[in-house]
């Protein structure tokens, strides 16, 4: 049986996002992300495949915090892909995903330089999981070693599992069956995930003629698969 063509898409509703960072925690738990030391964070080596970028707007007393959850934008024309000399990062034409092959990566770090969103993370040291944290590692996801680049995969292991379950049960994959960890966790449901090729899916319906939708740094022509819905003045 052939798997159908997918265009996996994520929507981030900035009006609903409260900046609680639950998605960051969920991602860490699902994808075996190491928690680097405080010293490393100060050096700018924090590793969060999804993280909240916060900007201050205006001056006191009319100051506003604006934040935007940022993860790999799974670009259709990803700048990080062609620069890899060993095909460690490449495009899945069927799913429109930007794949990262950890055990092929040699660590030139060119992809991160060419990534305008800076959402790729390099393992500067071997990851350390203190007792008993190593007990909760996800067996579906590789633990990456030192010298390897990594990034958000839209929880490709969860997508695979959902597709395989549907295949075994001999049915179509339903909308909302494949859910990345961050989307599942988001308390106000600010994150929505689905297949844009399916006109009935929730992402298709939300994005249809939505005046609030935009994509990050669209002028660069990277064609991201993550859509943001513009937030109003409701921020803290």
């Amino acid at each position, binding site marked *: 049986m052939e798997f159908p063509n997918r265009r996996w898409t994520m929507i981030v509703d900035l009006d609903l996002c409260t900046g609680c960072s639950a998605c960051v925690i969920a991602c860490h738990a699902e994808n075996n992300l190491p928690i680097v030391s405080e010293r*490393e964070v100060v*050096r*700018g*080596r*924090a590793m969060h495949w999804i993280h909240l*970028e*916060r*900007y201050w707007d205006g001056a006191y007393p009319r100051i506003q915090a604006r934040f935007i959850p*940022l993860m790999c934008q799974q670009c259709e024309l990803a*700048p990080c*892909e*062609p*620069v*890899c*000399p*060993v*095909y460690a990062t490449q495009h899945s034409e069927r799913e429109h995903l930007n794949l990262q092959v950890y055990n*092929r*990566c*040699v*660590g*030139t*770090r*060119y992809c*991160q*330089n*060419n990534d*305008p*969103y*800076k959402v790729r*993370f*390099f*393992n*500067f*040291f*071997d990851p350390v999981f203190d007792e008993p944290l190593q007990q909760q590692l996800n067996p579906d996801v590789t633990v990456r070693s*030192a*010298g*390897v*680049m990594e990034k958000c995969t839209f929880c490709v292991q969860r997508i695979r599992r959902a597709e395989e379950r549907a295949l075994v049960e001999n049915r179509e994959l339903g909308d909302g069956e494949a859910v990345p960890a961050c989307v599942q966790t988001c308390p106000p449901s600010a994150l929505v995930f689905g297949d844009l090729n399916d006109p009935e899916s929730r992402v298709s319906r939300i994005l249809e003629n939505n005046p609030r939708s935009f994509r990050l*740094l669209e002028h*660069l022509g990277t064609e991201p698969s993550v859509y943001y819905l513009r937030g109003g003045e409701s921020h803290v």
Partner: protein
Amino acid sequence: MSERAQILVGRPPQPEDREQAQQIAQAQERHLLLDPRPAEEMEESILRPLSRGSVWYWTALLILGGAVLVAGLTWLTQMYWGMGLTGLNRPVMWAVYIANFVYFIGIGVAGTFISAVLRLLKFPWRAPVTRAAEMLTVFALATSGLFPLIHLGRTWKFYWMLPYPNQRGVWPSYHSALMWDMTAILIYLSSSVLYAWLAMLPDLGIARDRFEEGWRHRYFRILAAGWRGTEGQWRTLKTAITLFSLAIIPVMVFMHTIVGWDFAMAIQPDWHSSVFGPYFVTGAILSGAAAVIIVLAIIRRALHLEYFVRPEHFDGLGKLLLVFSVAWAYMYFNDYLVPWYGQEPAAKVIQQLFERGAASPLWLLMLFSNILLPWATLWSRRLRTSVPVVVVVSLFVQVGMYLERYLIVAVTLGRNELPFDWGQYTPHLAEILITIGAFSLIGFLFLVFVKLFPIIPMWEIQEGQMLHALRRIGALLVPTRAELD
């Protein structure tokens, strides 16, 4: 022989003609090619350092070797613990290692290029300069070739970037500028080694005949590859050198253009510039010419080769330095003006960082060393023929060109489209030790080289001295040159 066309070289001046004797002495003092010495004596003075070492030599060898050893151990430590030992962070993923890579390639690019251009255009003063320049290319290229490996996260997997047949059927991706780079460097390195060897063949033959026994005789016999100096061999050699000189210049231009493309092909603001190709080539020749000057000055002093390397050579190289300083300034102006006029937010931030921000001392020092200082000094013939002045200017050019690479790689990367991801980089101990080790490695290789090969091309000087002569036309003394081909 008529009085007018009499060759005066080698003949003792007439006692009644004191003014003319003075003129001859002056010309001989200034120009190596008009001041011939017997072949025996010249060869002896060049080949003597091969079998005789001084305390200074062994001390220098020990110090440089020690620095190389420390750098090697640092590299091993870095491989064991991870790239975290460097100062790299999330926006700045390339820094000193890549700056070193570009810098050493730049030096390397220029050596063979200078030698090839001087040979093709038949500059008479080139003779003692060429071999040092060629060897600088080989050593600097080999050193720079280490840096892409040192900077890899998983160095031990480097062979995945080579196109070798394997079970998985995976080849490296030629979409990546890094692959173009590697190919170009390997071509340039191998052709530079061949070119240097070709130009050394007659000297290897001389050395083989001078050392009549011992391991040096056997060693030079193998390297000289049956060179006898027959008419046919000379003709073949001349053709081969000319062909190599012609072919190696475009290879060099391609290679350093591709190094520029490593950056220009990326969408990082201030890298994405179409002038980067020629800009990098000019910068490479600028830093390379300066490096040749420094190496020559050191060799001249250390091996007492004042007879061979004279102020006229520093004068010629100084002119080259000035020309390329002007060319570099023009390219830099291009690279600066266009983003400034465009006022794109990210590019603007980077330019402000250079002009007024934390990077401005480095930026100003770069402009001073690469433009202001060469322009202020090298226009004067008097200053150009003063060895200390030219060497100091060259040292400043080295600093300036290194800073240029550092600013492009390590500082520019800290700024990008999303201000949340801005960062700052400071070099850490591992990077500093490895950088010192890289400079030491070039010195170390030179030290080993001068013990194993003649560093001054004897045949080229002897040939030049045969072709050049002082002739008298009327009351005027004129240096003349005979054409062989």
